[in-house]
């Protein structure tokens, strides 16, 4: 018998596979393909304190082996989530990571404080969304701010805090260390790279917000590099993501040092991606006579 079960920041999960925030809604949309409770955890779409409308149409475009999006944090607000979505997810037996974003430190603290009284299993704090002028980019690029947000959010909850970082920085290691210093229980790497596309017929940017987040296989080499760079420098576990579409991709991230992996754009490429990745990891363990997937974490460093 092989073991896919993993321990992430004190949580016992049936496997190390979750989804990228914002790519899986609140879970119900993928029910027609498989039961989301097969996942190690479900990560919710990014939520703010109050409902947010997001950006006007023109929110996405395909790029070579990737896509750009500027959804702009459209969400129903964290209270609505707690009332409408969370109970259903828990009923289905899902482990739930709530992804949150704030326009300032206070909003982060307030959302996390609110979620502390709910049934979510962990809180993923998005310091990286590049779409919203008030929040996003600024938070995740300054180690001091990262440490501050981490410290203040950790202080108001007994739930694990996972800090999700932006890759749009020169030195990801120092940012990850700042999160650890602030008391984070885990790190998510990476959010989208900031990109854009131009419509040469209209001679205008394609996206309504001009810029958008680049995701998908195109960014996998960058994401993997960041996980590999950060792994030896922190003691808290990493959720690796960026371009994972199959179990080989997931293995690369695990070998680079990811304790868990998240599938984002991969769900759009293949709605069964998560299920097939879980099966693929199981098969890999069996074929290679490895008892426990945790033996592979960071093995590429050895």
């Amino acid at each position, binding site marked *: 018998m092989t073991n896919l079960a993993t321990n992430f920041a004190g949580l016992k999960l049936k496997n190390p596979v979750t989804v990228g925030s*914002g790519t899986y809604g609140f879970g119900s949309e993928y029910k027609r393909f498989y039961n989301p409770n097969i996942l190690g955890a479900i990560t919710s779409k990014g939520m703010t304190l109050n409902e947010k*409308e997001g950006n006007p149409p023109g929110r996405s475009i*395909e790029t070579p082996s990737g896509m750009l999006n500027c959804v702009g944090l459209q969400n129903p607000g964290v209270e609505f989530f707690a009332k409408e979505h969370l109970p259903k997810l828990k009923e289905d037996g899902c482990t739930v990571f709530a992804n949150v974003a704030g326009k300032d430190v206070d909003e982060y603290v307030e959302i996390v404080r609110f979620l502390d009284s709910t049934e979510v299993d962990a809180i993923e704090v998005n310091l990286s969304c590049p779409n919203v002028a008030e929040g996003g980019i600024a938070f995740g690029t300054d180690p001091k701010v990262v440490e501050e947000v981490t410290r203040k959010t950790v202080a108001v909850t007994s739930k694990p805090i996972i800090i999700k970082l932006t890759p749009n920085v020169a030195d990801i290691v120092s940012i990850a260390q700042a999160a650890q210093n602030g008391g984070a229980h885990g790190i998510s790497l990476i959010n989208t790279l900031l990109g854009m596309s131009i419509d040469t017929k209209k001679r205008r940017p394609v996206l309504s917000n001009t810029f958008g987040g680049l995701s998908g296989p195109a960014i996998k080499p960058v994401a993997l590099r960041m996980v590999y760079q950060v792994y030896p420098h922190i003691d808290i576990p990493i959720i690796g993501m960026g371009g994972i579409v199959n179990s080989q991709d997931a293995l690369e991230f695990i070998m680079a040092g990811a304790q868990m992996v998240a599938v984002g754009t991969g*769900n*759009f490429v293949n709605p069964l991606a998560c299920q097939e990745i879980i099966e693929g990891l199981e098969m890999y363990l069996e074929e290679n006579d490895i008892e426990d997937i945790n033996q592979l974490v960071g093995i590429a460093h050895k």
Partner: protein
Amino acid sequence: MLTGKIEKNQLLADDIFEMEIKYSNLSAKPGQFINVVCDGKLLPRPISVCQSKKESFVLVYKVVGEGTKWLSKRIKGSEIRFSPPLGRGFNLDIKNKKIAILGGGMGIAPILSVAQALDKADVFLGYNNDEFLHDKFPNKIYKSFASKGETVIDRFVNSKVGKSYDYVIACGPEGMLKALQQVCKEKNIPGQISIEQHMACGVGACLVCNCQTKHGYKLVCSDGPVFPIEEVVFND
């Protein structure tokens, strides 16, 4: 993803192909679409189900980019992968109405099955140049050709009969739908239109396919692609 076998993939008109895929009981409702996997492209392509039969279904698509070009090169017998039917189709529960069904360009594909279900309705088909699918409609048909300077909206408005319709169903390019919306607003005619937007998940999870409506943003993939004609807010 589901898998079917291509039974037919033939040119209908300029760059427009008809593909029949063997697959039992897809059971797509008129106006629903499927997400078709195109090798070499990351995201699947949304294509309306033009005809949903017991043992097969039909797509009609235009080659506009690499995904549809790849589709057009598939030969009989090869496999093709696609999602189950997605989106909300047309609401056909329209009683005691004199209905006009309008299709412009590729918008003719999604309305064929509607017109077959509502065979009392009149159908307005707007072609650029070459006609296609016209012989499949059991309805009374009015054709127009942009190459001859007449759009389907011109035809609809100019037709004497036009005055007596009290419900429209339409699919076509944004300009056509916008013009139709204007006409319907003036004449106070309700109806349903099917619109397009770039998509990713196709199931309402990723929120990239929004459109502006009178009631805020809605998702084309899961709230639509069919919306009440009066609800959609088009760009200027």
